[in-house]
């Protein structure tokens, strides 16, 4: 199915337009899209970093985790929307470079889990601002989740950069 989608996208007019490197205007689309992508990654990573270090209890202790979550999650969602948009542009331009690349596939799998963790921060602290602080067990669970989230997002960023180097699809035969 992924092959069919890739095939269909590669034949589309949109892909031909976005990957046309003979004109400066269209050649510029990909580097500009990637630059915006990186700036949005900056917003996500610093927000995720501050949030998780707070949950681990090592930073921003003057603010409660619930309050930080309320302040930072809108930035994370907005940046993720920009990331999706620019990511889609890059994927349409070079469908097989992305969709059939195993590093890209790993990135998306990690992203799904990381987003679920981020949603859980918002849901739990909306229900109870002290959710991650009600018992030693809950605190420990929070620390594990925060550590996991940091590793996941670093993994997503790394996989994103490494698509250019590893995991390219090689047609058999």
């Amino acid at each position, binding site marked *: 199915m992924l092959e069919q989608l890739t095939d269909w996208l590669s034949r589309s007019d949109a892909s031909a337009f976005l990957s046309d490197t003979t004109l400066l205007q269209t050649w510029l689309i*990909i*580097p500009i899209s*990637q*630059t915006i992508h*990186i*700036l949005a*990654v*900056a*917003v996500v*990573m*610093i*927000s995720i*970093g*501050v949030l998780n270090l707070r949950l681990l209890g090592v*930073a*921003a202790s*003057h603010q409660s985790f619930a309050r930080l979550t309320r*302040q930072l999650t809108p930035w994370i969602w907005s940046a993720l929307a920009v990331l999706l948009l620019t990511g889609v542009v890059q994927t349409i331009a070079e469908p097989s470079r992305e969709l059939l690349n195993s590093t890209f596939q790993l990135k998306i799998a990690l992203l799904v889990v990381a987003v679920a963790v981020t949603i859980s921060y918002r849901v739990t602290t909306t229900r109870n601002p002290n959710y991650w602080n009600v018992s030693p067990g809950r605190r420990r669970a929070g620390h594990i989740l925060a550590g996991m989230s940091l590793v996941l997002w*670093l993994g997503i*960023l*790394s996989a994103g*950069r*490494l698509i*250019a*180097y*590893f995991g390219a699809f090689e047609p058999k035969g």
Partner: protein
Amino acid sequence: MGIVDFLNWLNDTTFAESIRDSVWLFPTFETIHVAAIVLVAGSIAGLDLRLAGLMARDRPVTEIANEMLPWTWAAFVVATIFGFLLFASKPMVYLAMAFFDAKLILIVLAGLNMLLFQQITWKSVGRWDRAVLPPVAVRLAAGLSLAFWISVVICGRFIGFV
């Protein structure tokens, strides 16, 4: 020994050669460099947006600065070290790239802007720490800083395309 001699010497070291020849050293260094750069840009933007009165207006500027600046400095050190390792792989090639030179100049300008802000404007922070909209000199410095760092990221990304 001039700068060109030094760069040619650097280029010929086994150290530079091993980065050039390895399949994974350059991508690994680049990944660490990018991870550090996004934290530099993100943390600076976090403080600048507050200084510009566009974000977290209900929180004191000093509180945001304490929250963001440790990230900025730690990440800047990492970005510089790994940026140098990437540069060392092909020093003369990078030096000849307009985007690379522009990136270095922009980092220096961002540093000068920060130095002026810290040495002059920041002295009066007590008076506008809780201001929803800090004074115009503060907002100007914040706007310049954002413009410089966004330009650094643009140049950095374009290095890979030319």
